[in-house]
């Protein structure tokens, strides 16, 4: 179980990028992390992975996250964390050296599924291929907790749909996914839980079962939690239209 207790993070000139965030994620969950740009999604994930310093406590099965258990966490980011000059095959070798749990079978299977070239440097991949490869690495590392931060930015809808299907098909019961994305409707069908973050604070946390029981869609839940004003667009258009008429 991954547990965050009172986690806070401030940047230079940005207070409370995370503000006393407490969150528990159990094994086997597929958690969607939603929030507007700058809400703190990436900061939260990077804090868990130890890429940022923070105040508070983050533990994995009761132990602080350090070199002994960091291999249980993997990370796919839209910024990409692979080596652009290496080939897919080189990456496989590197991961095998570094992570005892690396699954060659899953890596090869996903490479075949996405029809990615084995011996081309990653820098020559298309954006979509780079995203796919980033996710393949995260899924093949053999981690229990897989963090994905906007992994599909730049992928077309068919690519994304394929990926969702594969993800659901290959995940083992003990594998947990924390998926940060803006593609709420696309992922709503397969996440088991939604966590909403705004201005560094968790403002919503609901399971898919609870949503189903109450008959609210994920999108409606998010709009409600965010106090989304449906008339926002029409009012803006009215104001802008009025301005233009005035001119």
């Amino acid at each position, binding site marked *: 179980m991954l547990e965050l207790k009172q986690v806070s993070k401030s940047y230079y000139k940005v207070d409370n990028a995370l503000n006393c965030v407490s969150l528990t994620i159990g094994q086997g969950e597929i958690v969607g992390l939603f929030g507007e740009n700058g809400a703190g999604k990436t900061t939260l994930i990077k804090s868990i*992975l*130890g*890429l940022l310093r923070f105040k508070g406590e983050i533990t994995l099965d009761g132990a602080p996250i350090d*070199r*002994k258990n*960091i*291999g249980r*966490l993997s*990370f796919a*980011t839209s*910024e*990409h*964390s*692979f*080596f*652009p*000059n*290496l080939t897919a095959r*080189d990456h496989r070798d*590197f991961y095998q050296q*570094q*992570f005892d749990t690396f699954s060659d079978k899953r890596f090869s299977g996903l490479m075949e599924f996405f029809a990615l070239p084995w011996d081309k*440097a*990653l*820098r020559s991949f298309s954006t979509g291929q780079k995203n796919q490869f980033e996710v393949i690495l995260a899924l093949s590392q053999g981690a229990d907790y897989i963090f994905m931060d906007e992994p599909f930015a730049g992928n077309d809808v068919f690519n994304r749909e394929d990926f969702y299907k594969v993800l659901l098909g290959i995940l083992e019961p003990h594998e947990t996914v924390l998926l940060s994305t803006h593609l709420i409707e696309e992922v709503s069908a397969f996440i088991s839980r939604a966590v909403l973050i705004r201005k560094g604070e968790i403002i919503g946390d609901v399971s898919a079962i609870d949503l189903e029981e109450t008959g609210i869609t994920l999108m409606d839940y998010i709009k409600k939690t965010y106090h989304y004003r449906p008339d926002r667009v029409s009012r803006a258009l009215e104001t802008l239209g009025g301005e233009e008429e005035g001119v």
Partner: protein
Amino acid sequence: MKKLELDRHCPAGMGSSTAVAYYTTTFLLGSFYAAVNYSLQIQRLRRMAWDITSGRHEVALPTFHATVEQALFPFLLFALGGLVLVGLNYLYHYQGSRSIYLMRRLPRRWELLRRCTTLPLAGGVLLLVWALLLALLFRPFYLAILPEGYEAAGLIAVFWR
């Protein structure tokens, strides 16, 4: 040594070519400079030694240490220049992607540090060892022109006088 083996001690995908080129160049440049500089100094010392033995002037010969220091000084600079390579190796993990995220979350704590520093450190040490060997090689030329009365003390003492 195979290139591939060297590559294992560099940032993944960067290769050893930059470091190898740097140390090959500095090795050749430093050696050339040392040879020319020391030859010129030996010629000057020979003239001074002749002045002493002929009694024309009362001059003091520079010590071997002072003489060789000038010739080998670039090696120290080149070795310290390896620090720039360490910086370049680190910055490489921000080029084209953020592979730094991967390197910083590896179970092997020292992997990032190892890949950034191994070749620059090894190259720096090799340059300094080569400079020391050159000093040993240069020493007989100095001793050969020492006039009588300028008895060489023990090797180490002369080095550090």
